[in-house]
């Protein structure tokens, strides 16, 4: 097989101007200053979304109701990262968790701290570790730690 010349091309994603739904995320961010986690609740099926959503993804109806959820929750799944996707090893293993907060129905992803990989299990109780200084940014929620 004869190798042929290479020419280049690009998909100019830098030219894009995205609008990403932010109503629910902004609601959550605002309240995080006060260590509160506020989402929205579907009045039809009762699903509580955190971060909130302007409509119910299951029922296809508009959502107007807010709902506060706990900063404690349960690990629904987790993974321990050893290398990046290209195979370069990480300096030390990192634990990422999917957590269902008490009172909420969605799983949200976070970094797990103050816990060894061998102590991790699905069903483990965890809580949010808040930053001392909070500004209404995702940084306010530093990590999940054991309850």
């Amino acid at each position, binding site marked *: 097989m004869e190798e042929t010349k290479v*020419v280049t*091309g690009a*998909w*100019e*994603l830098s*030219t*894009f*101007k*995205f*609008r*990403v*739904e932010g109503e629910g995320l902004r609601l959550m961010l605002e309240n995080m200053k006060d260590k509160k986690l506020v989402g929205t609740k579907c009045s039809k099926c009762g699903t509580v979304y955190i971060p909130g959503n*302007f*409509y119910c*993804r*299951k029922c*296809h*109806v*508009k959502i107007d109701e807010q709902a506060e959820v706990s900063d404690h929750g349960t690990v629904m799944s987790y993974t321990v990262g050893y290398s990046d996707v290209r195979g370069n090893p990480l300096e030390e293993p990192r634990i990422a968790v999917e957590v269902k907060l008490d009172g909420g129905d969605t799983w949200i992803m976070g970094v797990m701290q103050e816990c060894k990989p061998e102590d991790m299990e699905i069903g483990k109780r965890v809580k949010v570790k808040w930053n001392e200084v909070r500004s209404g940014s995702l940084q306010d929620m530093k990590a999940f730690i054991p309850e």
Partner: protein
Amino acid sequence: MDGKVAIAGYNISPCSSNMVTSRERLLFDLTTGLFEELGIDRDAVDTFIIATNDFLDGRTISNVFLDPPIGAYMKDETKVEMDAVNAIAYGWMRILTGQYDTALIVSLGLCGHQISPYLHIDYTLDATYDRQLKLLNELSAAALQAGSYLGKYGYPAELLDEIAAKDLGNAALDPYQARRLDGISAEEVGKSRYLYEPLRELHCYPPTDGGCVMLLASEDRAGELTDKPVWILGMGRSIDKYYIGDRDLAVSPSTTQAAKVAYDMAGIKDPAGEVDLAEISSIFAHQEPLLAEALGLFEEGKAVDIYSSGDSAIDGRLPVNPSGGALGAHPICSTGLIRMAEAARQLRGEAEGNQVKKAGVAVAHGQDGMCAQQNAVVVLGI
């Protein structure tokens, strides 16, 4: 063809150059609006077909977040990555098998604020040649096609002004169009700046945000859903060569082929005599007569007479783009579906200021690719 398929309802977004919305919100509002009008909810939809494009949406698998906002959670959904007339073709076939009674066709193109629409054609070009040469783009290719078309019949460049003035005049009456230039004259069109000669800015579509949804239903189900079903009488699709240097750009063989299939299915023998109106995705002014000729609606070589006589105007003998067509709005992927919806609006007698006198049979058209390389034609009736 066994069984009939109807358009049970549709919902067109008001289009604009910068719609302050997200993909999810636009589609949620379009679908819930349609469901409300029909008195149904998502349970009444058997299958969902989305027409979006990864390069327009700026993401891999562009439908990946769009299923919940259209009501498709835990339901059957697929994506046709083309102009949505092709998604209609798919929904229509699914219903014809008897396996589904309703199909919701969903499309959006945020090509005003989100992306430069011209890039969408850039990415379709031969990556090893045309994209390296960097001479060809959607506008330069269209200009060459316009030159080829005008040159073939010796038409004056002012014909393009007449076409655009007619379309933009119609568009100003239509509630869904983005470009609203009330009372613009051909002379004023002729004063807009040149992009690529002979095409001026107002001969070309405006970058547009917009979307459209349409519910198709089997004959039995249509009767329950609406008092005003619009029937799909025929459908045809075809494609031309890629290299513009290989093509006679003054004609559109694929449109002619697609139209023949659609007319045969609909039992139409003399389209110019039997069709009452046409909604054509002519995204550049010259494409309207060019495609109307390919559709058998205009006699070749008579475009100057047709436009000067008002034959194709709203109150003319054979109105073409009474909505104003794609020169008023071109949300890529949705444009052909909006043409269908506008045609249905005429057939249902709901087109208000754009309403043509006689509306029994309509032709709608959608296109993809450079210089309308790929075309889809649908014949609608009541």
